[in-house]
């Protein structure tokens, strides 16, 4: 039996069967996890100043604001169209650009396509570093570099999509059945011809499906980006909240909700057809 350090402190329980055989049950690890989680909770409560009393007595405020958003101010709708379309446009363009750019790098990050181990690891480190950068920080840097406006938002979304799609794509390429690739090589095809004819048809549906899913999420993300001045609906949302024009805020959120709902439904339908 394999005894770890933990098992040496908390001895496995021994059961003796009537016929003299012995069975051991290792001590459960669950108490450690429970203690760890509870300790982490206690620490978090202390550091964040979580206070149930305040929450219970003042949570009404939250619903007061929420209530003020209804009924939404429909007169404001004409002014929402443009920033709303800006948001959709920048998430669409950013998603497409990021997803397309990620393909060659994802190929270099797949062990079954790229023969050099060094290149593969460099590419993977690059992908995970890019994914650690919060989108909002990228947007902020982009507004400083490219100026305020939708270009900055588009760039931020493109960078995020690059990291996200890139990782999913190289994982997809790695799990692909290499049989057809081998058959193509045996027929006298070059590596790139074999990749185009044998790997791409297998990966493409998943790639497109991931791109659509990424786009769905980006529409919602793009709404946040306006907060740092990267254009779109976030800009007016931030403005109306700071002026406490809650009925207008309600209208913006309603428009966003309907838009996201439509985009998600269409995208889900397309993804079902793909895979």
């Amino acid at each position: 039996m394999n005894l770890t350090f933990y098992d040496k402190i908390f001895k496995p329980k021994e059961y003796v069967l009537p016929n003299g055989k012995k069975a051991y049950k290792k001590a459960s690890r669950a108490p450690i996890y429970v203690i760890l989680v509870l300790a982490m909770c206690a620490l978090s409560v202390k550091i964040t100043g979580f206070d149930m009393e305040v929450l219970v007595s003042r949570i009404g405020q939250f619903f007061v604001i929420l209530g003020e958003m209804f009924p939404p101010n429909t007169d404001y709708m004409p002014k929402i169209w443009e920033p709303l379309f800006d948001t959709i446009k920048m998430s669409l363009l950013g998603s497409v650009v990021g997803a397309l750019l990620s393909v060659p790098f994802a190929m270099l990050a797949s062990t079954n396509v790229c023969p050099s181990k060094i290149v593969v690891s460099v590419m993977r480190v690059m992908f995970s570093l890019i994914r650690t950068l919060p989108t909002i920080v990228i947007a902020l840097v982009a507004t400083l570099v490219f100026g305020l406006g939708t270009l900055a938002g588009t760039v931020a979304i493109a960078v995020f999509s690059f990291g996200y799609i890139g990782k999913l794509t190289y994982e997809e390429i790695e799990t692909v059945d290499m049989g057809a690739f081998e058959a193509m090589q045996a027929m006298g095809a070059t590596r790139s011809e074999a990749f185009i004819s044998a790997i791409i048809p297998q990966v493409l549906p998943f790639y497109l499906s991931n791109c659509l899913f990424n786009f769905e999420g980006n529409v919602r993300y793009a709404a946040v980006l306006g907060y740092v001045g990267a254009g779109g609906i976030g800009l007016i949302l931030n403005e109306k909240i700071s002026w406490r024009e809650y009925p207008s805020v309600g209208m913006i959120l309603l428009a966003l909700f309907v838009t996201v709902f439509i985009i998600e439904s269409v995208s889900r339908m397309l993804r079902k057809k793909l895979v």
Partner: protein
Amino acid sequence: MNQRIQQAYDKRPKDWVYNLITAVIVVGLLIWSGSAVETSGSTQDGGQIALNVLSGIFHPDLSFLFDFSTKGVPYLMLETVCIAFLGTIVGAIISIPLAFISASNLTPLPIAFAGRLIIMAARTIPAFVYGLMFIRVTGPGAFAGLLTMGVCSIGMISKMYIEAIEDLDTRVIESLDAAGCNTWQKIRYGILPQLMPNFASTAIYRFDINLRDATILGMVGAGGFGAPLIFAMNSYRWNEAGALLAGLIVLILIIEFISTRIRVKLTRG
């Protein structure tokens, strides 16, 4: 040429019309979206700023990075982890009842649909809107931040919980039924063991995401390292921003490593 082969050739699916329509739609959408790319023009030379950002990230302010007081990077990171942690727990707890009423295999369709609509609505509201609303409740600080994280997590967590509930293996419950268990026993021994690993795994995954999204909280004044980061960046103190970003990258990589290992263990048992 053989008659049969000619026939088979003539019967080939004519998919070029379909392909052409798809291509036209995609290209049209791209051109349309390209029209949105506009900028007010940067006040300074953009390239120079990009270089400054990069040099700041590679030359982080070390005294700030290793300042262990409550103003230093380590404490800000700890505060961010705590916000994300407690926020995830709050979100995970709220998600459980929401997921059960929205699971189409447990509740009647109209209720399940209403539940899903609520979840979707909760998901649509951007994080900073929640942040600004909760600041009215608790005042600025980490408390507002963790509540924001909580409600922001509901959308994704409950969506994945619903999937787990709908994938429940009901044969186990059938066999417990046959063994004469009562409702409580069926939940305890038939349902919980199936759901627990899945729920825990989802919560850990969301914790990962919350840590990345925590930046936005600071920007609205809801705690964490977001506020110092945006101040540093807006006043072009790139070394300070670099220190914060370096701390964040290390933190996220560590947490991602740990959470992936735990989740692999949870799914493999």
